[in-house]
């Protein structure tokens, strides 16, 4: 079939092409002067903002480090890739970044299910990886899942639940609210984390009862059925873990029913600029955690960072932005302490390392021994319709957070 001249020529070209594919990774590895850092995230679909706002922050930080002489003397080259939010693609991309592109460090800005898939790849390849988005506590808290070279520079769900539980209980007591509803997205993060919050709210205020619950699907266009279900039950307050576009939909649709005139809403995820901007009529009586705000912590460093980001990209930074910036801050410090931009050495010095950070409570954030960060800014306050969006912010007490977290870990058999 292939006996004429053209096709044998074609075959040769094909073989040469195949050889080219095989040889490509070697060329990629050849440049030892620079250090490649792979960043993977969700760049497409409904939550593409996770990826774009993480990448923006990474760009700022990498440029800063390169201008100051690089990571341990090596210039950083950032390789950004889209996983489309699919776990198996996340695993593939992680492998590809390390194996084919020669990345020596991974920055994983995947949502939880993607992060768990990346975690297995990291276990397999032994590469240094910092998860910058997944808040699911077990990723680092569960020793069975923890990996020696994988860290987290994102909030940890249980920290937020302790502070949010405390704030909610206190506010509810002050306002005499005892009948609560919950309305959270129907998937693992939504269900597990809501359960944590409910436990901590009851821990701080045992007389609060939860009288109804609604579980809309993630990305559902219409929340009217959940809203009317909550209205029927006549609660005084509701706790919700809806986030991003779902949350702004919910508030906009709730307004149509004057839902927030009847009840107070506690939601840790309101206090992020994109959500605040997409909610056109912010109702009174909503309380939120501080995801990322330029005025919390209210320091010149934090304000300067937020302003620089806004100027550069003409949009507000998100919670994912500071988490990514923190990850790169840790890489910088670890390379300095370990003496070189070497993933293995950096992984060894990271546990217990503290860095100066605009996002820390006292200007510092620490990577604890269990590979997750502490002392980052957590606060709760009341939301208002215009800047600074959240007022009367009460900061979380890290002594109390760690105490209750340890108890929670014991209950789950993690320590």
């Amino acid at each position, binding site marked *: *079939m*292939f006996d004429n001249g053209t*096709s044998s020529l074609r075959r040769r070209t094909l073989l040469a092409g195949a050889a080219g*594919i*095989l*040889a*490509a*990774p070697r060329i990629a590895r050849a440049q030892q002067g620079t250090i490649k850092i792979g960043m993977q995230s969700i*760049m*497409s679909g409904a939550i593409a903002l996770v*990826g774009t706002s993480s990448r923006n922050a990474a760009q700022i930080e990498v440029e800063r480090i390169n201008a100051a002489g690089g990571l341990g003397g090596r210039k950083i080259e950032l390789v*950004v*890739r*889209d996983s*489309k939010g*699919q*776990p*198996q*693609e996340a*695993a*593939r*991309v992680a*492998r*590809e970044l390390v*194996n*084919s592109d020669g990345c020596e460090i991974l920055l994983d800005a995947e949502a*939880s*299910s993607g992060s*768990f*898939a990346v975690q*297995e790849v990291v*276990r*397999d390849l032994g590469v240094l990886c910092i998860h910058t988005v997944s808040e699911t506590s077990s990723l680092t808290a569960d020793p*069975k*899942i923890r990996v020696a070279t994988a860290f987290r520079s994102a909030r940890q769900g249980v920290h937020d639940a302790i502070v949010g539980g405390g704030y909610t209980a206190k506010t509810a007591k002050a306002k005499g609210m005892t009948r609560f509803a919950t309305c959270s997205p129907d*998937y*693992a993060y939504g*269900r597990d984390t809501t359960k944590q919050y409910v436990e901590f709210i009851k821990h701080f205020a045992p007389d609060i009862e939860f009288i109804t619950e609604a579980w809309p699907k*993630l990305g559902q266009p219409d929340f009217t059925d959940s809203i009317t279900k909550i209205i029927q039950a006549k609660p005084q307050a509701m706790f919700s873990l809806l986030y991003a576009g779902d949350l702004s939909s919910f508030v906009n649709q709730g307004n149509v029913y004057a839902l927030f005139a009847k009840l107070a809403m506690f939601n840790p995820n309101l206090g992020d600029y994109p959500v605040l901007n997409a909610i056109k009529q912010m109702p009174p009586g909503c309380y939120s955690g501080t995801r990322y705000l330029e005025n919390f912590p209210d320091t010149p460093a934090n304000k300067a960072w937020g302003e620089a980001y806004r100027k550069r990209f003409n949009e507000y930074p998100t919670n994912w932005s500071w988490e990514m910036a923190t990850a790169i801050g840790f890489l910088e410090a670890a390379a300095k302490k370990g003496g070189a931009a070497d993933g293995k050495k950096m992984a060894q010095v990271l546990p217990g390392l503290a860095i100066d950070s605009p996002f820390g409570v006292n200007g510092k954030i620490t990577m604890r021994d269990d590979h997750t960060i502490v002392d980052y800014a957590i606060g709760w306050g009341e939301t208002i319709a215009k800047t600074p969006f959240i007022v009367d912010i009460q900061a979380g007490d890290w002594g109390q957070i760690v105490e209750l977290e340890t108890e929670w870990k014991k209950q789950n058999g993690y320590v």
Partner: protein
Amino acid sequence: MRAGSFSRDAAIGLAALLVLAVIPLAVHSPFFTDLIIRLSAMGLLATSLNLLVGATGLVSFGHGMFYGLGAYAFALLMQKTAMPLWEAALLSLVITSVVAAGVGAICIRLRTIYFAFVTLAMQMLLHSIVLSWVTLTGGDQGLRGGIPRRFIFGVDLADQRNLYWASAVVLILGLLAMRHITASPFGVSLRMVRDNETRAAFLGIEVWRAKLTVFVLAGSFAALGGIVASLFVSGAYPELVDWPLSGQAIFAIMLGGIGTFLGPLVGSAILLGLNDLVTRETEYYGLALGIIILLFALGFRRGVTDFVLRRLRPPRVLADVERR
């Protein structure tokens, strides 16, 4: 079919296997090994779908459900029981076949576009069950914690190169088996069903039995691909049973060519290559892939292998192909 054709196919398969086997010894390329492992999974899915679409004329929109079912059954058996790998793999094929027989019995009653719809609905149902049954499947987070005891006949599949060789063997054996099916008298009766059901029935073929058999067979081969995928990602995720995967398989067979046995495999290779290349170059993956699909659908209008064969083969052979 001629008697010699199977031994010829087997020889080609063996040669391909030998070539694949030596490549990692000559060149160290994790990219290439990963690609072949994924191609093994996707190729089995697409080729088995073509048993339905190309050979029998049954257009299924939900074939990916058996791929996902295979992956979940296998990963669950490995995690929850102490079974050795080959037993778990075999048992997941049996489970998938049983489910495929049930699903098939319902679906094959319908024809044309309604068959496509009902298979799609079946996959949506399965996907939604996987999402809801959190205690068994882990819901949207998938089965985490990796797959233990990845040994088969003493070989440790946790090592990526070993998994590469195993996947290559599975792929070649699977393709040979499917090739054998299409070339067998059963395959001939499938084509008769495809071309004219009434005439096939008149000639003594039990149409529903032929359809159901090929539906179950195709489902099992898809499950085999799912097992490879599950080993590759060390677990199982809801995306593996979701219907966009069926869409990808359809795209692969269209891209490679419905009329050629190896078309779906070629299509899978192009699709995976495109995915990797485009993802590498741009964050506008959808835009790039969409334009490529449009160019292909409006320009090429038939699969790559069909297209190439038309140009290479002399007109007489072509006419022969057309007549089949």
